[in-house]
């Protein structure tokens, strides 16, 4: 009987325990599905109601020991939170119950926050017992475990978000670099970089300023027209800058955002801003180099056109002058130069011999040669006196050219039968006349170059006579100033005057050819920096 009674008690007790375990497991399954604290509290409220005799349930949450209690499940009872007592420092829970009236439990949670539970008057029976207190404790532990699960889930989500964000930052850094390098001319890579930097670092705003010396050339804000503060708090701003082509680009980002407010920027934020600034710098440099390459191509095309035009101004063949042998040469340098020579018959039977050199090189020089050619043709046709021709040329060249452009010229009019040569030397190298007695007569400049000053008489005219066997050399400074690899001029090493005296070949073309060979031999591997031009006249009979 005793045994039977004992069995009966055991069976009832086992069933009770089994029921409680089932309730615990079921409760845990429900709590584990909660995605937020509020959901967790709502589920917990249901579990408590179905497993206790309580008529009312109030749940509270406290973020930390000194934070205020927040009611998360409200039964409508006022001021019940005053019953909640924080457990002692080393305790994880505290509870108190007053038979039939209230049951209070405060459970410390894993993140040092607290859940507080106040159960109102028991619906029936003798009220709360020690068994109820133990059950409530078990449910409190259950809540704590589920809360830990919730924190782990939240932490896992934050970790995934953070990892994705890092991938986003790296991908965006690469993409932005590509976008900046592809950005069209006229678009502003520093604006794009500022937008991306703000987005990737969670800055709430930013600015980029372009400064040249003391002058602020540009100030761009992100978001558009939202100015940044001039006195940001420490840690709430990061900056990066670089200088290029005399301009400084200054980037700054303000106020790193978070869901809980503004927070200090991190080291990686600074690295990102620096990297984006470097990308803009590289992009501007590449653009600059690209523009330079395009400009160089354009100039080379222009020069090629100018060189072709200039070449057409030079004679393809020189006229035959009875009793004379004449030859000329023009070897243009890489760049368009300003050398010019010609020999043309005049209506009165004389011949005009011209050699000229425009100061400077390139297209402007070529244009001036073209002007000289046109004016010279017109004036020679009109057969005006040589000094008047020089005066007029000086005037028109002066007005047609910039201040730093002028022309040195040697213009001679040869009367073939008499050998008389009327000439003007406007600032040009002296011509050499090799006399029959082997003496060299220099025909130096007697006036300023054409177009240098607005004077009425730029130079005097002179007259000489070329006898039979005598030779006249006109040349430009491309010959005398031809340099070798040691930067020594041809005329210093081997004076042209001596070459003229020594070399007296049968034909003028041979003389010209020998002269060019001699210069070439002297210069060696040194590049030709200027046009080489010469006109050689030999009176043969």
């Amino acid at each position: 009987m005793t045994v039977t009674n004992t069995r009966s008690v055991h069976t009832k007790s086992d069933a009770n325990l089994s029921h409680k375990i089932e309730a615990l497991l079921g409760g845990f399954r429900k709590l584990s599905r909660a995605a937020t604290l509020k959901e967790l509290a709502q589920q917990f409220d249901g579990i408590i109601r179905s497993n206790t005799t309580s008529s009312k349930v109030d749940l509270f949450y406290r973020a930390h020991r000194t934070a205020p209690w927040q009611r998360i499940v409200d039964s409508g009872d006022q001021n019940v939170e005053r019953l909640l007592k924080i457990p002692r420092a080393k305790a994880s829970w505290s509870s108190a119950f007053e038979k039939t009236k209230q049951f209070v439990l405060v459970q410390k949670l894993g993140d040092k926050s607290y859940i507080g539970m106040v159960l109102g008057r028991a619906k029936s029976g003798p009220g709360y017992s020690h068994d109820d207190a133990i059950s409530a404790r078990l449910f409190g532990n259950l809540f704590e475990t589920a809360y830990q699960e919730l924190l782990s889930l939240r932490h896992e989500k934050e970790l995934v978000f953070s990892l994705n964000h890092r991938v986003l930052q790296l991908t965006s850094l690469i993409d932005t670099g590509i976008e900046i390098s592809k950005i069209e001319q006229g678009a502003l890579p520093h604006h794009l970089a500022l937008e991306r930097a703000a987005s990737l670092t969670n800055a709430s705003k930013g600015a980029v300023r372009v400064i040249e010396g003391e002058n602020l050339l540009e100030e761009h804000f992100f978001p558009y027209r939202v100015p940044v503060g001039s006195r940001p708090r420490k840690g709430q701003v990061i900056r990066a800058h670089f200088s290029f082509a005399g301009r400084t680009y200054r980037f700054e980002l303000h106020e790193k955002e978070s869901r809980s407010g503004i927070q200090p920027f991190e080291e990686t934020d600074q690295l990102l801003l620096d990297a984006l600034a470097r990308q803009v710098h590289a992009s501007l440099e590449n653009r600059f180099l690209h523009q330079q390459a395009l400009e160089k191509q354009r100039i080379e095309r222009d020069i090629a056109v100018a060189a072709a035009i200039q070449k057409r101004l030079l004679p393809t063949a020189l006229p035959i002058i009875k009793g004379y042998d004449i030859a000329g040469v023009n070897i243009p340098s890489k760049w368009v130069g300003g050398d010019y020579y010609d020999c043309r018959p005049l209506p009165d039977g004389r011949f005009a011999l011209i050699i000229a050199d425009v100061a400077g090189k390139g297209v402007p020089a070529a244009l001036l040669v073209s002007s000289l050619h046109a004016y010279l043709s017109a004036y020679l046709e009109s057969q005006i006196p040589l000094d008047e021709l020089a005066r007029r040329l000086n005037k028109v060249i002066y007005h047609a050219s910039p201040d730093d452009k002028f022309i040195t010229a040697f213009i001679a009019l040869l009367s073939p039968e008499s050998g008389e040569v009327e000439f003007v030397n406007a600032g040009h190298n002296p011509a050499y006349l090799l006399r029959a007695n082997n003496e060299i007569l220099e025909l130096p400049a007697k006036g300023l170059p054409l177009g240098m000053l607005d004077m009425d008489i730029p130079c005097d005219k002179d007259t000489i006579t070329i006898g039979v066997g005598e030779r006249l050399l006109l040349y430009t400074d491309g010959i005398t100033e031809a340099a070798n690899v040691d930067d020594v001029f041809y005329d210093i090493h081997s004076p042209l005057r001596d070459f003229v005296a020594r070399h007296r070949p049968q034909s003028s073309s041979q003389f010209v050819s020998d002269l060019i060979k001699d210069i070439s031999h002297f210069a060696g591997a040194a590049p030709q920096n200027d046009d080489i031009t010469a006109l050689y006249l030999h009176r043969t009979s």
Partner: protein
Amino acid sequence: MEQSFSLTSDVRNNCLVISTVGYVNNIGGEAIAKEFNRHFETGIKQVIINLGQSKVVNSIGMSFLIEIIEHLAEADGKLVFTNLDPAVDKMLAIMGLFKFAGKEPTVESALKYFSQKK
């Protein structure tokens, strides 16, 4: 140029359409979430967010969008993004938003998508 944030919204065929202008950051994301919650509480479960005038989104703004997606998923609802700038599209993809939200080229095509779903 990215402006300061603003939004407009309307409900079409029981579908909330939120159109944003400017930087979707903390302020922008919060404003979108607030507008969403206001309608969600009335039973709206189909939402379109038109980001056509928002070329820049940061991760704080995205966290609000993720919350909206989660709320809708719990309620068997759905969020569809439209008019995405390629850079924003890529950002949302990397952050995994399209695992649970849709995207359509325009608001009209998103409305059509929802009407066919019914």
